[in-house]
């Protein structure tokens, strides 16, 4: 079975500061990272890859997407598709679904699409649900931790967190599963694989939106940005000290005020 993993790459939160007073975002360094939950999705896919399934990674955007894909190849993905377009860095959920749909066609179909359930860029968390709806596929989202493919047939068993434990959700392929962050521990790439992938110019397959046959209107954003508003500056808290009773009294006064 072909398993597609979507890697969404965004600016590393440590590389910029949101300055509420100046109402500006200051970017200090050009550093990017793959959404942590997407790496958990990749690990869930690679576990299936170890059992003989074909794991393919896809990422959309500029050079940072290619870096994420090389890392995925080094970790064990069999194929990586980079939809190269700097203009798609700020893509939202609508066009991203359109791109992924075309990538699925491009790779000859997929039985399972995995991605993270949470993404720092909140709008992109919709991608899994929207993709499943657009494809008419089954969708498992809630706290998915791992996926098993039944040896016979096309049934999938998804382990889902529930309360203090887990339960299993069964569905059939094709399906989209959104894996929750920290569902597993992503593996580290062996050093030899890193070198091999970085020395192989063909390790990451590059396609453009034109190659995928996507018209400009298919890439139109769902949301139009009209402006930016920043939350007010944080007010420092008040330190209370004294005996326990005094502290409790002061706390009550502050809460009532």
């Amino acid at each position, binding site marked *: 079975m072909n398993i597609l993993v979507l890697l969404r790459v965004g600016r590393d939160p440590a590389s910029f500061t949101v300055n509420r007073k100046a109402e500006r975002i200051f970017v200090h360094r050009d550093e990017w990272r793959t959404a942590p939950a997407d790496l958990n999705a990749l690990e869930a896919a690679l576990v299936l890859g170890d059992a003989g399934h074909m794991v393919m990674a896809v990422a959309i955007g500029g050079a940072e997407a290619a870096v994420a894909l090389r*890392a995925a190849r*080094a970790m064990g993905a069999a194929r990586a598709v980079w939809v190269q377009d700097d203009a798609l860095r700020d893509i939202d959920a609508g066009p991203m679904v359109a791109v992924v749909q075309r990538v699925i066609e491009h790779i000859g179909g997929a039985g399972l699409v995995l991605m993270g359930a949470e993404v720092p860029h909140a709008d992109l968390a919709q991608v899994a649900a929207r993709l499943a709806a657009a494809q008419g596929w089954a969708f498992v989202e809630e706290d998915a931790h791992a996926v098993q493919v039944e040896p016979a047939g096309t049934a999938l068993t998804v382990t889902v967190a529930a309360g203090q434990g887990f339960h299993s959700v069964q569905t059939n392929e094709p399906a989209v599963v959104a894996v929750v962050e920290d569902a597993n521990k992503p593996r*580290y*790439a*062996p*050093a*030899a694989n*890193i*070198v*091999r992938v970085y*020395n192989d110019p063909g390790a990451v397959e590059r396609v453009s939106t034109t190659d995928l046959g996507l018209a400009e209107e298919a890439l139109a954003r769902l949301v139009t940005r009209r402006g930016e508003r920043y939350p007010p500056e944080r007010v420092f808290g008040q330190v209370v000290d004294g005996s326990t009773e005094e502290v409790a009294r002061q706390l009550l006064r502050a809460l009532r005020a």
Partner: protein
Amino acid sequence: MLREFCEQELKPRAKEVDRTGRQVPALLRWMGELGFFGIPFDQKYGGAGAGEVGYCILMQELNRACPSTATIIGAHIGIAAMSLYLDGSEALKQKYLPDLCAGRTIGAFGLTEPNAGSDAAGIQLRATLEADAYCLNGQKLWITNGPIADVVMVLAVTDPSLGARGGATCFVVEANTPGFAAGQPERKMGLHGSPTSLLNFDAVRVPKANVLGEVGLGFVTFMKTLDIGRVSLGAATLGGAEEALEASLRWVKARSQFGRAIAHMQSVQFMLADMATEIEALRALVYRTAWLVDNGQPFVKEAGMCKLLGSETASRCIDRALQIHGALGISREFALERGWRDARIAEIFEGTNEIQRIVIAGELLHERGVRIRP
């Protein structure tokens, strides 16, 4: 990816490794499985094929996170396995390198003796040919990885009439050979998690097939190995200096004095600027030299500079960071105090900085036609 491993797996354990003086064996095995122990070597021997540049990246990241672990791997790759890789016969490489690259065996490099430190040519450990084997008698001191090594590259005198230059030979000695014994780990100021000990050779019989390189040319093999080792040592010190700068940058934003963050104080800014400038100079030197190594260019002078500038830069940067942190800098609860203790040895081992100055000056003058005799 390497940084993630070091940050997530090594750094959280570094304090405990320093406190107990014990490594986590499972962690070393894991690093072996990931190929850390064979980073620079050809993939046909089980290495990663990342060359000197890749090896320098590894050492930089390891030393940022845990200098003790970096020292174990540095001695294992940079001098032990490297001497085998540089001058070993194909049979020796096939026999030992795959296990060394996978971390299934640990290597050490035996040069220093009671009467031979900076004067490496003064070694006295004797190897006598007896039928099909050499018999080794003597002692090596201050051997990194000594207590945990499975394989030791040892320099011994085979012809006393020729001295070390022409009369010394390098041997691959398996630690389970009768007569070989490692001493108790030394109690050191820093690098508590990196075991160092003496090695005792009491009629240790080493087959002729385990001669590394040519008989009588062992000193050349060892000096060549040390030249390359100095580049990666420079990279390791770069990691230590970077970590000190990062810690300082975090602290100056958080620490307030006289009603404002100490980042706003010029005296602190000057220290940060000096650290960053020296670190960038070191980075440029280290990676240019690694490039020279990978591209077969002469690098001996630059390698000496890497070790000299690196060790002194790291010591200065960590010392400044400690000053910026004030009393917290000397607290055992924080990493800086450990970093300060761990950094000092880099000015001493793998050729003291005084030796590096001699090497650099010798190369400089040699380029201008002046031959300096040792």
